């Protein structure tokens, strides 16, 4: 009985690492620019396909993490500085921007569907022998994914807390106009945000397909609601919050799956967000829902 619980928790941690990398990228992007980017999942898929193409051309799947990250960063920067700014200049507010990213998600998703001939492709990573940690059996690949999530979290926290860039990022997230009048080059900080969050997004797509071993046009889109739920639950702009929320959602999902049957696992993951919004909305929303503005 306890063995089942231990395995469920271990698998929950693995699922949480996959969610957490994407959620940290999402929360950074959203916390700073206030763009609620529904195309985030599509960009994850772009990263995953970039890694797949690299693999087909003989590049190791683990280097694919970098390939996917660079693809995600480049696309996100292009969209952020080009497309989103164009709409913002024409007077798009927070809400119009959600609609823009939704349209963009349709274009990217179904564009990939058209190009990929609507097939699901095998994404193989060499599997070493499974490891036994007490009652829990996991593969080394899964252990590495957990390690990657922790490294990403540590690097992001170090960047935000210890470097000058991180200080500028936090200042801008708190109060863009004040940061600007203090002499922070806000344009440059926004570029850095797009690049880092885009890199995490593309990399998360690759992490997702390393774990699931297949890549298709709907890869990121199906995963996005979990990512958004973790980012909202953790509080926008907080990598630590995103990590904790991902951990909670991952463990609950897998424990429910182990005891209550797999069909209700995703429902349970989302259920947490709904329950928190129902009973403690202020935890999620950080006080009152103050109108914020886009920072592009």
């Amino acid at each position, binding site marked *: 009985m306890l063995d089942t619980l231990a395995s469920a928790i271990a698998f929950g941690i693995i699922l949480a690492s996959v969610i957490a990398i994407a959620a940290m990228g999402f929360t950074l992007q959203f916390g700073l620019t206030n763009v*609620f980017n*529904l195309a985030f999942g599509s960009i994850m898929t772009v990263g995953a396909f970039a890694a797949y193409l690299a693999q087909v051309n003989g590049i190791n799947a683990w280097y694919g993490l970098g390939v996917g990250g660079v693809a995600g960063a480049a696309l996100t920067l292009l969209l952020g500085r080009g497309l989103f700014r*164009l*709409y913002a200049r*024409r*007077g*798009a507010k*927070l*809400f*119009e921007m*959600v*609609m*823009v990213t*939704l*349209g*963009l*998600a*349709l*274009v990217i*998703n*179904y*564009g990939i*569907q*058209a190009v990929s*001939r*609507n097939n699901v492709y095998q994404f193989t990573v060499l599997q070493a022998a499974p490891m036994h940690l007490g009652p829990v059996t996991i593969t080394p690949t899964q252990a590495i994914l957990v390690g990657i999530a922790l490294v990403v979290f540590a690097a992001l926290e170090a960047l935000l807390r210890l470097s000058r860039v991180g200080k500028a990022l936090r200042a801008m997230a708190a109060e863009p106009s004040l940061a600007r009048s203090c002499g922070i080059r806000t344009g440059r900080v926004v570029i850095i945000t797009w690049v880092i969050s885009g890199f995490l997004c593309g990399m998360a797509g690759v992490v997702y397909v390393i774990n699931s071993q297949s890549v298709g046009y709907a890869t990121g889109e199906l995963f996005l*609601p979990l990512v*958004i*739920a973790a980012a*909202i639950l953790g509080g926008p702009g907080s990598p630590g919050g995103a990590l904790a929320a991902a951990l909670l959602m991952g463990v609950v999902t897998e424990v429910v799956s182990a005891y209550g*049957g797999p*069909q*209700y696992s*995703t*429902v349970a993951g*989302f*259920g947490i*967000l*709904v329950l928190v*919004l*129902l009973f403690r*909305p202020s935890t*999620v*929303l950080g006080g*009152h*829902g103050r109108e*914020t503005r886009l920072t592009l």
Partner: protein
Amino acid sequence: MLSSWTFYISTLVIYFGVDLLSGISLNLQYSYAGVINFGYIVFQAAGAYAAAVMTLGPSGGASSFQQYVFGANLPFPLPLLVATAVGAALSALVGLFSLRRIRRDYQAALLLIVSLIAIEIVQADVPLFNGSNGLTGVPRPLAAVLPLSPQGYQWAYAAWVLFLCALVYLLVRWLSRSPWGRALRAMRDQEDAASAVGLNVTALRLQVFVIGGAIAGLSGGLLVQFIGAWSPDAWGYAETFVIFTAIFIGGVGNYRGVVLGVLLVPIIFIQLPQFLPQIGYPGLTDSLEWVIIGLLWMLCLLLRPRGLLPERRSIALPDLSSRSA
């Protein structure tokens, strides 16, 4: 040849009517209550499920080829009323927790998540919803009673759908011109001021959401009685976006804009490509269709952010209040 054309056109008229009801519902919720209901399809599908089980007769239990709850054999207009009530009740339930004073983009994401949860539950719960197979064989209302040819029945059903559309349209227009509608516009334009003069904005928002949900349930009931089948795959969350594209392109807050948008997007852009010759591998046309819908959506937000027929300015003078659309 000719008969197949009239068959096709009458089917399109019925789809147009159903989508128009959806457009009216979403437009009401969005332009008056500021709620972006990305979970719309859930309320439509709930109404459809209710109408289906109310006409399929008692369930045969686990041994029969499809399972559902509370089967009944209600006479003709009653299943539609049940569908409407179910849509409204489910909206009230979802609205109670999703319509708090939270940021609108969070709210939209929350409603999208609600629709994903709903699909998971429907697929997981075979005894309740027959899983991902859905329900089939829903009988058409009065098909056995009316002395009509299949052709004639099609047109009669189309007329029935359009009649209900007109009814709902007049009702919604009357509501939006009433004092209640003015209170809604006040809430939308100046929420703080509206609550300062004593309007209960949360209650108002919930009322609009429930009325929209009732219309959604009705449209689902009408559709399921026509096509005769209901399944979680065919009633997925992407359908909501088609209607949203329609009202955005047509013009939010303007009912003539909604009619135009519904005519343009679900009818012309979704149905017309079926006539085009297939290019490339099977399915390519479908993918490209969605790419074009996405591009249209983005182009429209860029060039005409308020739609082709924008909402008319309403002037807050008593004798001009009837002008407000």
